[in-house]
């Protein structure tokens, strides 16, 4: 469908940071639309953040598992986002992804971590989001979630004195996890998205099935490796574009001077980006 090719092409022409900033402000604009909390956030954003207007899909999923109900509405909405756009939300609208992009700009020596550890996110998803909440009847991913610690834990403790008295070992553990992730985000690009994020784990498989697709045209590739250097998730786009780890940030499309990386829609021919 031409729509997806045009949409992808339009995204590839946009600067990502302003879109990410707008999304982050939108998902945390409580005074604009507090009634939107019945809508799952397309990105990773804690619903206990005092300013959040949408529901955290992972927190919601755990609560449905705990009460032994199949979350048809939640899985339907996430499936629709995935079927239409794959992991595009990760690259463009996720507040926690935006935080990682910002922290990686901190001028510190960088630590490249191999993507061979990426399957860890499937284990984390299975254990902390599904199996342990099912058995223990408690949302264990939320208990350890660094996004919750940052967006809910710190502001709520700062705002409500009575909550401060209830903090204990779990809060301390959560703060340590948050601190470790914040440090890791400064030296490794998008570590949470690559190795942990349960929402990215859900969206990932849709990259190969979604209406929106990215494509590598081998005959145009000059093997300059510019795409590899700009990929925030450490992928090698000629071989790994549109795999489950691709967050569809389009940085590789923008960087390729030969038009070897293209936007396209499933079942249709791909559109080469025009280069200035």
């Amino acid at each position, binding site marked *: *469908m031409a729509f997806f090719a045009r949409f992808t092409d339009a995204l590839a022409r946009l600067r990502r940071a302003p879109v990410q900033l707008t999304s982050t402000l939108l998902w945390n604009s409580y005074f604009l639309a507090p*009634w939107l*909390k*019945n*809508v*799952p956030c397309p990105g990773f954003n*804690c*619903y*206990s953040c005092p300013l*959040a207007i*949408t*529901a*955290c899909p992972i*927190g*919601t999923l755990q*609560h449905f598992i705990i009460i032994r*109900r199949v*979350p*048809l*509405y*939640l*899985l*339907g*909405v996430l*499936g*629709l986002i995935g*079927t*239409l756009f794959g992991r595009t939300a990760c690259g463009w609208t996720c507040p926690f992804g935006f935080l990682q992009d910002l922290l990686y700009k901190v001028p510190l020596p960088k630590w490249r971590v191999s993507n061979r550890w990426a399957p860890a996110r499937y284990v984390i998803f299975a254990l902390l989001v599904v199996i342990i909440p099912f058995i223990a009847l*408690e*949302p*264990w991913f*939320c*208990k350890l*979630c660094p996004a*919750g*610690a940052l967006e*809910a*834990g710190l502001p*709520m*403790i700062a705002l409500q004195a009575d*909550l401060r008295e*209830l*903090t*204990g070992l*779990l*809060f301390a*553990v*959560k*703060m340590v996890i948050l601190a470790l992730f914040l440090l890791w985000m400064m030296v490794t690009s998008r570590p949470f998205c690559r190795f942990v994020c349960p929402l990215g784990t859900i969206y990932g498989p849709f990259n190969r*099935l*979604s*209406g929106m697709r990215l494509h590598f045209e081998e005959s145009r590739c000059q093997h300059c490796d510019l795409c590899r250097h700009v990929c925030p998730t450490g992928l090698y786009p000629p071989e790994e574009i549109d795999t489950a780890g691709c967050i569809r940030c389009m940085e590789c499309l923008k960087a390729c001077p030969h038009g070897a990386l293209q936007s396209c*829609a*499933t*079942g*249709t021919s791909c559109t080469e980006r025009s280069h200035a």
Partner: protein
Amino acid sequence: MDKRFWVLLGLFLLMTAAGLLLGEARFVFANASLICLSCIGIQ
């Protein structure tokens, strides 16, 4: 368009509609409107 795309789109539209008819959106709202003590790190 790929047939799988349309099948998935239809499936997830149906799931969303079924969930809405079963009132799940209200449960999501109620749950998300509470302060999640696990998210804060208290309980």
